[in-house]
């Protein structure tokens, strides 16, 4: 048995023409002049507004075009409002062998027995405890929490080597700043900003670049070092 929908006569606010609409209609188009108009019930708040609790948001930048936008913390994917690129926001964990490139806006963890075999992995945050043959890119931070190895180098925002952890890199490392409380060995390491070496930290590299350096008592550094070329302070 079908339900009978009650109809009411509504008048177009533009031309005055009348037409029959469902009694529950919220909006329609005038069949006489084509103008779109809403039901009086909808425009005066006859539709109950749902109060949404505050959604926690975080800022996100697109890996492709660099545009920033806000997304819900729980969101698993999004689309860049600027270039339309699909953004994978979730997290991923590599506990064994993994081939193929990775691009995430979330967090990538390579476990102690993990071995990333792709050519390039990009994630906003990378936690490294195992090995990577490919280049690692971490715009927010690369955190080394175990005895780790990187063959092709890495770059990103903050490089952190935790106490007791170690990183051996076969190629250049490029970061904005660094905090070394474990051991770092590499051919070249470049920090555009400050580098801090803790009491149990050590940095051993052929070349070390930084804008400023703090080596706490107990910390160790060895290599050829150069400060970032700022405005010339003087020549010798």
């Amino acid at each position: 048995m079908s339900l009978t929908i009650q109809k009411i006569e509504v008048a177009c606010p533009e031309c005055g023409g009348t037409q029959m609409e469902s009694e529950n209609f919220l909006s329609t188009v005038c069949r006489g002049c084509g103008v779109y108009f809403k039901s009086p019930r909808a425009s005066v708040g006859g539709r109950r507004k749902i109060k949404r609790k505050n959604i926690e948001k975080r800022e996100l930048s697109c890996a492709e075009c660099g545009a920033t936008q806000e997304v819900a913390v729980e969101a698993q994917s999004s689309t860049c409002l600027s270039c339309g690129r699909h953004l994978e926001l979730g997290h991923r964990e590599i506990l064994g062998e993994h081939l193929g490139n990775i691009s995430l806006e979330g967090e990538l963890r390579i476990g102690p027995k993990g071995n990333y075999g792709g050519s390039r992995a990009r994630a906003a945050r990378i936690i490294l405890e195992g090995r990577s043959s490919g280049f690692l890119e971490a715009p927010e931070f690369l955190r080394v929490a175990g005895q780790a190895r990187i063959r092709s180098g890495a770059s990103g925002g903050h490089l952190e080597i935790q106490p007791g952890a170690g990183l051996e890199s076969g190629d250049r490392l490029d970061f904005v700043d660094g905090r070394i409380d474990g051991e770092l060995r590499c051919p070249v390491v470049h920090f555009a900003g400050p580098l801090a070496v803790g009491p149990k930290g050590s940095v051993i590299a052929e070349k070390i670049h930084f804008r400023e350096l703090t080596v706490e008592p107990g910390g160790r550094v060895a290599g050829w070092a150069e400060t970032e070329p700022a405005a010339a302070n003087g020549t010798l």
Partner: protein
Amino acid sequence: MNSVTGAGADPEESKMPEMVSGTPNLWGDVRFLKDASLQANVHGNVEATHRLVLAAGAEVAGGVKAKELCVEGKIKGGLEAVGRVWLKSGAVVRLRCFAGSLRIEPGADFQGELRVGRNLP
């Protein structure tokens, strides 16, 4: 506080310190036996048994060795300190820096071999 003993200078070529724009020039090696602040251009090496401050505008053509060192001037021949070394903004150091602990401020200019801490591989 300052104690200067000239050493290693050739008597025939040694000169009295000059006042040139307020910065004296010293030829030969300089040795400090107490905490000191050096505000001169030294055409030789500098050694300090205690803490040494190389003031802004001061230059050392040779190397500097001290227990602790704060550099605001220029050192061409490298520096060594058992304790803490602090390169302030405007400092210029070349060749090497060996230190127990180290702070290089933004604006300091360093190029050379860097060794901080003990028992390095």
